[in-house]
């Protein structure tokens, strides 16, 4: 049921022409797809970089055909130099964290579905929205330029610690213009992100349809909303950090560089700066950033699980409050990246307690997901497989955090492969599973066609088993003190463990190849997939009440009225075991 309202001004006119429809579009759906496409290109690039890294680690002298085309200096004759390994490592991390994990689960799906799920015609500020995508794209171009400049990409890691990142070319290869491009790219990315978050927040607060109270929003909408609040604060701090870095590099200031440094036999003309300042500013952003990466996937997974289980979660309110507490606590823990950094050891204890406390809402979420499965009627499809797999991965990645949260243990495990295993499990796998689940779930709505189920399931099994094979051993290697960011292992104690690295490399190559199935499925189904009905999953939220794909103004000029929360599953509805949010039919009162 819907009604027209004279008060709701049309946000923008119907798009005309190819450029307005597909390039500089004001339509949140097109913008969402653009973010997804950018994330897809970035993840393929990032994955390719990780293959190069893993191959180099176990076969350091291998001639990789074609690599010299990527960089004559970095890979003469196809053999990777140590510094180029670090360049690839830096670009891998930067692309994956910023352009994949912030873009795909949050900007891509959020842009596409948040307005629809709350019953709005578009985001609150369509022009800002368009600007935020193209600004993100500009940031991506600036970053990728680092590959083509003669000196190559920076070698300081995605964390770009000062003074290595701040003193300029004396720090080593890639640290001249490569590092500057990094700083400029990320600063541009911050601005894009702030614009995007602004849109999400204003839209969620003010453009909800009649009857759509906050508590009736789907859980993924909640996740996007909470994420945009976190993101606003986080990127507002990273931007100053990058500005100060750029000034140190090019304007001769000394925010991060102390006196008396001698690099490349040159006394550096700076004084008084604090390397720890960079770390504090960076991680004040950096820790919330990882929750920006995981929260949307938690929301997407919750949304899909409810649908696949055909019953609501045990308590949506608890899930919402848990996500909020994670968001809130995420601002108190940044120092756990800096336990051995030289900051006051007392503050290590201060940071450790909130870090350990985050275990509680994270556990609550996991227990709610698990507990809700009890007594359910779980439907298996590609989307639900990834959603269920997410639970497994989130636990696997989460428990290793338990070790790292304790400063005593971190003395031993800091900067080892244990850390790398931890964050890959939670971010690189679990968060990505949310993206995969969302893709399989929402592809019919976005394109009007179904993805191939057989290929989807095959993709799931290769990825699920493959990522366990790749990343579990990282933790074991960490336990024996395998240091990270090494381009090869020359330490005596590493010799017995090189075979483990070979295993991980082969697993990575196979799992990576398996992603081609997903890519093929995406592209093939886009053109040749089975036509999708309006509501192929018998789902309740508003996106399933409109055509697949939706018209330019989502609800065809009408404004939906919402009567229920999106958790009406397992009830006697007129269409089956569910009642849609905009259906005025009565449902027996259920406490939720």
């Amino acid at each position: 049921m819907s009604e027209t309202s004279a008060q709701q001004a049309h946000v923008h006119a119907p798009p005309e022409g190819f450029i307005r429809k597909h390039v500089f579009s004001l339509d949140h759906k097109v913008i969402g797809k653009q973010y997804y496409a950018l994330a897809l290109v970035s993840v393929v690039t990032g994955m390719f970089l990780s293959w190069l890294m893993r191959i180099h680690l176990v076969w350091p002298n291998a001639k990789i055909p074609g690599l010299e085309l990527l960089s004559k200096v970095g890979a003469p004759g196809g053999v990777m130099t140590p510094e180029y390994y670090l360049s690839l490592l830096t670009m891998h991390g930067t692309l994956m964290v910023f352009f994949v994990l912030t873009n795909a689960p949050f900007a891509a799906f959020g842009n596409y579905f948040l307005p629809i799920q709350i019953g709005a015609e578009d985001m609150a500020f369509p022009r800002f929205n368009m600007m935020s995508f193209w600004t993100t794209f500009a940031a991506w171009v600036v970053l990728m330029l680092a590959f083509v400049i003669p000196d190559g990409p920076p070698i300081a890691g995605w964390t770009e610690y000062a003074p290595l990142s701040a003193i300029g070319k004396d720090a080593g290869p890639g640290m001249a213009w490569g590092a500057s491009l990094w700083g400029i790219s990320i600063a541009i990315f911050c601005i894009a992100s702030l614009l995007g978050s602004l849109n999400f927040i204003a839209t969620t607060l003010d453009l909800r349809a009649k009857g759509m109270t906050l508590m009736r929003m789907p859980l993924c909408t909640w996740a996007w909303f909470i994420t945009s609040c976190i993101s606003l604060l986080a990127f507002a701090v990273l931007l100053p950090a990058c500005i100060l870095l750029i000034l140190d590099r090019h304007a001769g200031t000394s925010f991060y560089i102390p006196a008396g440094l001698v690099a490349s036999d040159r006394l550096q003309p700076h004084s008084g700066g604090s390397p720890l300042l960079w770390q504090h500013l960076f991680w004040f952003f950096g820790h919330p950033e990882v929750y920006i990466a995981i929260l949307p996937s938690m929301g997407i997974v919750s949304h899909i699980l409810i649908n696949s289980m055909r019953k609501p979660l045990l308590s949506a309110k608890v899930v919402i409050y848990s996500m909020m507490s994670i968001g809130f606590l995420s601002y108190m823990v940044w120092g756990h990246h800096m336990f051995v950094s030289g900051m006051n050891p007392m503050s290590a204890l201060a940071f450790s307690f909130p870090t350990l406390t985050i275990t509680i809402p994270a556990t609550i979420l996991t227990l709610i997901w698990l507990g809700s499965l009890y007594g359910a009627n779980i439907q298996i499809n590609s989307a639900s497989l990834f959603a269920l797999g997410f639970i497994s991965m989130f636990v696997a990645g989460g428990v290793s955090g338990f070790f790292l949260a304790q400063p005593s243990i971190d003395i031993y495990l800091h900067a080892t492969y244990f850390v790398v295993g931890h964050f890959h499990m939670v971010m690189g796998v679990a968060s990505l599973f949310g993206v995969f689940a969302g893709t399989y779930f929402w592809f019919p709505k976005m394109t009007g066609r179904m993805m191939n189920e057989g290929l989807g399931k095959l993709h799931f099994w290769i990825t699920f088993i493959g990522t366990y094979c790749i990343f579990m051993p990282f933790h074991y290697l960490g336990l024996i003190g395998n240091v990270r960011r090494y381009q090869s292992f020359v330490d005596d104690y590493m010799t017995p463990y090189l075979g483990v690295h070979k295993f991980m490399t082969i697993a990575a190559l196979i799992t990576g190849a398996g992603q081609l199935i997903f890519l093929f499925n995406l592209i093939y189904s886009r053109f040749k997939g089975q036509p999708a009905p309006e509501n192929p999953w018998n789902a309740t939220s508003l996106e399933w009440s409109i055509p697949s794909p939706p018209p330019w103004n989502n609800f065809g000029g009408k404004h939906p009225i919402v009567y229920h929360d999106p958790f009406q599953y397992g009830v006697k509805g007129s269409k089956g075991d569910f009642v849609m949010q905009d259906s005025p039919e009565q449902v027996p009162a259920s406490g939720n």
Partner: protein
Amino acid sequence: MASTTAPAVATQAGTISPSVARPIASAARASRSGIWVGIFAITMSFMAFTSALIVRQASTDWTHLVLPSILYANTLALLASSVTFELSRRHMELVPGGRLQSEGAGVTWLMATLALGIAFCIGQYIAWQDLREQGIYLATNPNSSFFYLLTFLHVLHVTAGIGAFSYLVGRLVLKNGSLRRSFFENTAIYWHFMGVLWVYLLLLCRTKL
């Protein structure tokens, strides 16, 4: 304008409980939220710079910067521009469609605001010139680094406000001569924030640099 009571809309089936009776979604309200969210983000960024300043202040090379005296005149200009803006508000009248039109001195006060805003920016530039004549540049010492940085970033944001103002004045002066009320209100909020932010930065520079 958004309604505040339950709309008396007849629906065929199902009652909407009072808890859902709320103002209908409104683009005007969204833009108001937007401006406050934007202000929050800008504030957070300047808080980050403030903490950088506090950390940097602990180093042995921290010195003292004498602020160019024109800054105080600039401050008066900026604060005066907030006053003139509010004065212009009294001369704006509401016309149908949630729009505002200027009657009488409305446009004049707005032009005064614009002029004072531009005067502020020019004055800041003169302040930088003043320092440069003394041989104090961005990288001369940490104090000057923060001074140039903070004042420059503030002026950048003020310039954005001036852009909005120019558009505002332009709309009112043109043939049809009206603009969305929400645009006017939001520009006002942003502009006053620029004044508040400046007073904070001035005090910060005065007491710390």
